[in-house]
């Protein structure tokens, strides 16, 4: 599409970005728009952080003083992250539908730009969640991290895996009537493999033993992210468009 197709007189003021640059520009635009709207409304991040902090404190009151094993601590950490994510990650699409802005986005952006922009936003939301929750969890539960590099890599990959699956699930449920229950029901089977790998890897990072090695956990989580994101890019158009 070139400038000559434009209708009005200000042709020199509006030009096309071509190929990959245009695609990346569109993805970043969706990410920036969602971040800006979220920072002004604080709907999603408030729900996610409130749930995360509340559940972490509640868990630590009951179990923190007893010195839990690394297997239990890693499981509890990812349970807190998973349910906190469920409390807020669906908002990215549900909000578009509830505020009737989805048609505007459909009119202006290619479907894959929307998916990748929303995925990036959800990933950043989970990273913000990790930054608040994980130190709190470690302090209150008295966990030791014997392999910090592995632990951080698992948090990043695990958060990406949760974001990838949850973003697609959110798009699928956004037009349904009972969105909350459906989002959890669709997300759970999709995210169980990623959760299992993240828990096993985190157990190792906390000094415990697991059936899989740390390298296996990281590789499989990376493969999971690749498969889910690729499949989502292929299928998202059919979910997003009428």
């Amino acid at each position, binding site marked *: *599409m070139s400038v000559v*197709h*434009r*209708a*009005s007189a*200000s*042709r020199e*003021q*509006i*030009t*096309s*970005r*071509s190929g990959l*640059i*245009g*695609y990346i*520009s*569109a993805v*970043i*635009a*969706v990410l*920036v*728009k969602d971040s*800006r*709207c979220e920072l*002004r*409304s604080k709907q999603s991040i408030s729900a996610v952080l409130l749930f995360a902090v509340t559940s972490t404190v509640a868990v630590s009151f009951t179990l923190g003083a007893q010195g839990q094993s690394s297997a239990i601590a890693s499981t509890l950490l990812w349970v807190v992250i998973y349910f906190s994510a469920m409390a807020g990650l669906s908002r990215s699409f549900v909000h578009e539908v509830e*505020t*009737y*802005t989805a*048609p*505007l*986005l*459909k*009119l*202006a*952006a*290619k479907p894959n*730009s929307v998916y990748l922009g929303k995925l990036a936003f959800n990933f950043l939301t989970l990273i913000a969640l990790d930054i608040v929750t994980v130190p709190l969890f470690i302090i209150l539960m008295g966990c030791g991290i014997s392999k910090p590099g592995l632990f951080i890599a698992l948090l990043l990959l695990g958060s990406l895996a949760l974001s990838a699956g949850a973003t697609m699930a959110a798009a699928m449920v956004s037009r349904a009537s009972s969105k909350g229950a459906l989002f959890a029901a669709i997300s759970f089977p999709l995210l169980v493999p990623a959760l299992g790998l993240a828990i096993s890897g985190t157990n190792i990072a906390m000094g415990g033993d697991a059936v899989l090695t740390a390298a296996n956990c990281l590789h499989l989580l990376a493969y999971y992210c690749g498969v889910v994101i690729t499949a989502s890019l292929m299928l998202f158009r059919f979910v997003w*468009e*009428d």
Partner: protein
Amino acid sequence: MVGIRITDLTHEFDDRLVFDSLNIAFDGSCLAITGRNGSGKSTLLRILAGLLTPTSGDAAVMIDGFAVPRDLLHNFIGLAAPDVRLYSELSARENLQFLLKTRALKSTSEHVEQVLCEVGLGKRGDDPISELSSGLRQRAALAVALVHEPRVLLLDEPSSNLDEAGIEMVREVIGKYSAAGMVIIATNDPAEAALAETRFDVGGA
């Protein structure tokens, strides 16, 4: 050369038939789609914009003799309709800048300012949409449809909520875009319909 080709278009919502084998071929500059409430005027615009997939048949926007593929429609079509809402947390200017970037278009700040002034939002362009009156929101919605300078402008009840100055602004926009491409207006207002060279009554199809 811009045109629309609607061939054997049938659309149903659940069990309610909206169109049955609708056919329109139009190559002029301004078309008014009229019809009683619920006759499917807005639905027809949504189908042309690619927001709705018809039950059967085909609706195509033609540019220089070729049907525009659905995944490129967003660059050629501008739609202002009551059910296409703007991001209320953002200002009109931020909405316009966002929509240009999602279309992979690069624009100058002067261009965005020019579009805001064109619809009479020059002084309120930085206010959040949530703080604008219904008339100013209608102007912002029109700016969103115009910002990428589409070849085909689809307007659904464009004068609703507008004052006299706003209605005059809509007339100027329709005149300008009719001259440069095509404007299709869905309306029940005889004054709006009179701006078009051709009128098509959906209810009477």
